[in-house]
């Protein structure tokens, strides 16, 4: 391998990228847009869930209950209705996500402390707002009920503190409040930084589609030089994103960053090397860009979404999938990004993942180079 020839290929590819500033802009912009969109989706606080109330009791107790339900920003009272049919039609039209039906003898039965004279209806097509509404209704009912119970007990002369049951104390490390955005957004970084790999697959396929690959082969450039030279400019472009994307995550989405930025940059570069290696394999196997695109979705994008532990924890995957997740660079890099962002750990904890990434990068490039010769030799 000669560094001079490697450099020549990299410069050629660099010139090619620079000649088309729109595409370059999009290559840089796409991961950021993707991060913003998906991070926004996990950051949205589900609030203002519209509900309807059907109060058959119409007592002061039931009115107080409704008041408590709709206080605050979580549940919005869309309508108070008189007929069950109205609930039906509102759910069907998607105007409300949940409805509370209060039994005719709500106040009486509540006083008797026997059961909960209440029916909650959830729109099962929208589990996010539905489950949230259910959670809120449950916890507020519990509050309301224990208050009522305490009043009852005191009226009977019993100490109301005997109602205190079990005190569950929750401590959350690394991420106070257990906000999902704080670990999903760093995980997403490993997904969006994989996009340049799809670009590499496309550019390699382009050379073949245009028939310019033969020209390159005819030059004294070796295959590993060609492959590394093709990857190098995209590693550079990717590194621009390595600066840009955490900045967006930290400034726009307020994700805490506790680790060492330099380490993050370094390990990101290794990750880019590994994931671009995957893109290169695709580019080597495939003859047209459309095909390269399709295959990159199947091999790079979808698995990165489902098998790298960003949204679905690796521990919950079945054995076969867990093995597969080990050969995906995103799996190791997602552990690294979360580790550096949240607990702020260093190489002493992360070294196995770093070595794994580097190993994958070497293996992928080697496979690419090997098949490159076979395909064209």
């Amino acid at each position, binding site marked *: 391998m000669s560094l001079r020839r490697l450099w020549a290929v990299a410069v050629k590819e660099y010139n090619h990228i620079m000649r088309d500033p729109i595409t370059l802009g999009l290559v840089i912009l796409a991961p950021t847009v993707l991060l913003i969109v998906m991070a926004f989706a996990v950051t949205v606080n589900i609030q203002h869930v519209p509900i309807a109330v059907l109060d058959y009791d119409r007592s002061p107790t039931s009115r107080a209950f409704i008041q408590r339900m709709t206080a605050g920003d979580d549940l919005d009272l869309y309508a108070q209705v008189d007929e069950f049919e109205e609930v039906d039609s509102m759910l*069907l039209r998607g105007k409300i996500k949940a409805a509370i039906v209060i039994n005719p003898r709500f106040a009486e039965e509540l006083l008797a402390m026997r059961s909960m004279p209440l029916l909650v209806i959830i729109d099962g097509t929208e589990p996010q707002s539905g489950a949230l509404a259910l959670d809120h209704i449950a916890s507020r009912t519990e509050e309301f009920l224990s208050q009522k119970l305490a009043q009852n007990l005191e009226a009977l002369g019993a100490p109301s503190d005997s109602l205190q049951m079990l005190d569950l104390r929750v401590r959350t490390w690394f991420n106070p409040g257990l906000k999902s955005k704080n670990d999903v957004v760093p995980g997403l970084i490993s997904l969006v930084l994989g996009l340049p790999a799809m670009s590499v697959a*496309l550019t390699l396929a382009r050379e073949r589609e245009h028939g310019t690959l033969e020209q390159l082969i005819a030059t004294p450039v070796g295959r590993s030089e060609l492959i590394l030279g093709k990857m190098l400019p995209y590693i550079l472009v990717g590194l621009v994103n390595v600066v840009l994307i955490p900045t967006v995550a930290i400034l726009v989405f307020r994700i805490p960053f506790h680790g060492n930025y330099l380490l993050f940059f370094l390990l990101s570069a290794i990750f880019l090397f590994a994931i671009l290696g995957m893109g290169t394999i695709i580019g080597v196997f495939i003859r047209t860009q459309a095909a390269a695109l399709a295959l990159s979705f199947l091999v790079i994008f979808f698995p990165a979404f489902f098998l790298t532990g960003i949204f679905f924890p690796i*521990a919950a995957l079945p054995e076969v999938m867990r093995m597969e997740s080990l050969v995906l660079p995103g799996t190791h890099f997602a552990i690294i990004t979360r580790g550096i962002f949240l607990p702020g750990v260093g190489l002493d904890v992360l070294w196995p993942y770093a070595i794994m990434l580097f190993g994958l990068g070497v293996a992928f490039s080697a496979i690419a180079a090997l098949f490159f010769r076979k395909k064209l030799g």
Partner: protein
Amino acid sequence: MFRRIWALAVKEFYHLRYDWWMPAFMLFGGALELILVGWATSRPMTNLPLMVLDEDQSPASRQVITSLENTGTFTLEALVFDETPIREAMVQGSIYAAVIIPPDFSEKMASANQVPILAVLLNGAESTPATAALRAVEGLAREMGQEIAVKRLGIDADEFAGFDFSVRTWYNESFSEAYYTTPAELALMLEFTVLLFAALAFSRERELGTLEQLLVMPLTSFEIIIGKSIPVVLVGFFDFSLMLSMVHFVFKVPIRGSLPLLLLLALGYLFVELAKGMAISVFSRSQHQAFLLVMILGFVDFMFTGYAAPVESMPKFLQGVAQFIPAQHWLAILRGIMLKGANLQVLWPNLLALLILGLVIGAVSLRYVRRALS
């Protein structure tokens, strides 16, 4: 005219024969994605590794440990004797939660009015399994708490129904995630595949320099557009039918409304995305550029569909923007027909919005593409 359009469409299909990856991806990529989504979201969170620090070492505390294991959520990773191994395991990310039972636990359990304490430590760096762990521990704590209350208040346990109220989940009685995710994925996959396929139509010819050849042929720009659209529409529609049957037969999601209406509206929606894709296609100078534009526009659409985050929780301004996203109305229609059995009387606002958006987008796109081609 029809003969010429036909010839062009045949040429496009001829292309596909030599470049079968793209249509194969369109046909089966969506199906594969559906399997992954349906499967990943249908699995309950089980066997999460858990560490327990039992400082009480009593029958009561051992009972807690057994109950924790019986929730099915946890596998007991280790019983530890101080907090150090817990901290180490958390930093390494090998456990998501730990439970600490303090020394006076059994004493307080047995007393008449003291409150027993349980502590749970969560690994916030993995919030999804940590939240599942918290839910399981909370459920257990609620159960234990009710037992204590019932015992202390001297209520007959059989008579006490607890704080549970009855819940009914409409349109999705078992509250299955697949009901929610697979139709949404189906709707979005249709958008992405059609957009991508259409976006490559002209950008490819332009990049390879064959667009000029196409333009000097005795075809009007209108004929070229139709000829280019036919394969996209056919493959896209076939793709949709395939995915729909998968959602229905594999994931057992019902189609409660009218199937012909659903197919008809899917076809209509397909044309809206086709128009967008064609506009991207003539705008882009290379396939690479077309692909990146599709990714960016597609994901921005995705944000407003209400699939990832409910639209009504978004800021007012974004709620307004969402009204102009065809995919949002399409998703509402698809879910309405499949899950709620809705008919036109219910769906007309979405349908009207989709129709207007489709006509505007179609007209603008057609004008733009025709001008670019001539």
